[in-house]
């Protein structure tokens, strides 16, 4: 998180609501790591918070005995180890909000640095193509995950998944993550985007979420996007994904026309997609002429289009 954003209520650090009842389908992953560094270790430091919903731990999984207690929203001396200390920040109340966390000298009342956390109101699911495994640092040839990391750096709660984490009926770990976010983390806006079979999985996940609304809670699928989407009923499914994600408020679609060069893999026109009416065949553009399936997710023009339309419609 850059200095320019760290105290911004919208683009600053987001934190997941971690109130009792949160399922954490992939294990405890709701705390935010913060590194405190000082060039003057002899000066004792303390933290001050502006909202008691924020709790601070020295372990990622809130192990018993590892909480740093606050008294009147201020800690005692931080247990720094020389010049630094790694802490984990948790939003432990079942309500939306934001909070400033100040680093101060123990013996004084001024702020050395500040982070402003906001709770996430949205969740973003990024689904890669066949043989693309999410990783950090991201592979620059995996455009879906490059975009995912860009959004993460802008304060979004982004979850990168292998496309096969979504089964043909929409179930799987990606579904469980969204359900947990809506049911237990007060998230009410969802975005899903994917490339190739990840595009097919984008449809399947949206379809399942839309079907199961009564059991999940109130939410909107605000933004979806396909990049050369292929149905994902199996690794060998080559059917173009031409169905719009059910109930999506906004859908972007980019595709190319398959050829011998890319084993005839392609997406295609999808109803009511941006650019209207059915999305963009990138081969009709100067920058995308002759594009193959294996290139279409890597065009900056495609990523920028999706990013711009997502960030203007979805707040973190």
């Amino acid at each position, binding site marked *: 998180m850059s200095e320019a954003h760290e105290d911004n209520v919208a683009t600053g650090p987001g934190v997941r609501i971690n109130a009792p009842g949160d399922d954490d389908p992939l294990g405890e992953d709701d705390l935010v790591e913060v590194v405190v560094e000082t060039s003057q270790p002899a000066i004792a430091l303390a933290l001050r918070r502006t909202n008691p919903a924020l709790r601070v731990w020295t372990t990622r999984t809130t192990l018993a005995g590892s909480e740093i207690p606050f008294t009147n929203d201020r800690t005692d001396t931080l247990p720094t180890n020389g010049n630094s200390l790694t802490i984990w920040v948790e939003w432990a109340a079942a309500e939306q909000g934001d909070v400033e966390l100040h680093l101060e000298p123990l013996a004084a009342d001024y702020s050395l640095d500040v982070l402003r956390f906001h709770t996430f109101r949205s969740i973003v699911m990024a689904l890669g193509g*066949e043989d693309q495994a999410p990783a950090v640092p991201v592979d620059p040839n995996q455009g879906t995950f490059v975009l995912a990391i860009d959004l993460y750096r802008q304060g979004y709660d982004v979850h990168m998944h292998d496309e096969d984490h979504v*089964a*043909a009926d929409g179930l799987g770990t990606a579904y469980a993550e969204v359900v947990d976010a809506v049911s237990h983390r007060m998230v009410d806006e969802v975005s899903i985007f994917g490339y190739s079979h990840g595009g097919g999985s984008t449809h399947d996940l949206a*379809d399942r979420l839309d*079907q*199961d609304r009564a059991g999940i809670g109130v939410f909107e699928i605000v933004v979806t996007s396909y990049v050369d989407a292929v149905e994902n009923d199996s690794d*060998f499914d*080559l059917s173009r994904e031409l169905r719009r994600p059910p109930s999506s408020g906004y859908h972007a679609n980019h595709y190319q026309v398959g050829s*011998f060069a890319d*084993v005839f893999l392609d997406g295609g026109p999808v109803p009511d997609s941006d650019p209207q009416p059915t999305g963009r065949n990138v081969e009709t553009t100067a920058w995308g002429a002759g594009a193959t399936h294996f290139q279409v997710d890597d065009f900056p023009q495609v990523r920028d289009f999706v990013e711009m339309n997502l960030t203007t419609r979805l707040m973190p």
Partner: protein
Amino acid sequence: MIREKTTRAAKSPSRWSAWVIGIGCIGLVSIVARGDAQPIPIVLISPNDVYQAAIGALESAPDRMSFEERLAGLLMLCDGHLKTAIEQLALYAARQENNPRARAMVGNILKRLDVSRHQMVAALAPHLDNQASAVVEVARELMRESEDRSAERPPDFSAYRALIEADVRAGRDPQASLIAFMFESEPGAALLTLVRAYQLRDPDEIKPILWAEHVVADLLWRRRFGFVERRAVDPAVIRELEKLSRHPFWWVRLYVARVVDACPELAGPGLVNRLSADPNVLVRRVPHGPESGE
């Protein structure tokens, strides 16, 4: 090509596995015992050089025209030999498990072959027992696709039912791994499919199974759509699962094992221990979680 041979001695699967893989290229096949009454054949696909070369030639085609010519040649080769063609494609894909381009090529060929669901399943179901795990994975992928499931549709098990029904009517033991595969996919649909495939005729035998499935499915439906909490427990469900867990048909008990695996909170006292000691290894093998109260 699938060749099967029964041995009299029960062997350790791991010991046999190493041996069979080593000589698989000449197509010698044997059998392992599972530790209960149902032995499982070891299945291999012997590579057919003509098919493998023809598929590989498509990948290396220098241009569209050559590709179409080679594809036409391959399709002619497959004509009248669909089962062999599907098996050879599965083997090719298994050998290229980290090459999405090659696997897409296999998908393309299958599309051009216009294989029906029943043809696909008939060719691939035996390979759920294939010695090579990569072939098993390909068979599973393609069979899952054949189920045509979505958020709006349950899986279509009609092709599986046809195979099992044919075995039952002929007095053969149905393929156990196929039945296990169905339960892994969707336990309720699998149970209802097997009631038909096993040719049950007596309503008094059919109704208790149907009723139990209905009671369980109803709770799962109420959970899914928010009429009860997502982990809500219904004593009627626990009672029905308890009854089915003592059923003489192993596949009925496998249904219970799969439900309890997915929803451990539905296991009544003693159920997990009983499933863990079930006479059928496929029932025993399903992870059941801790016994209630332990």
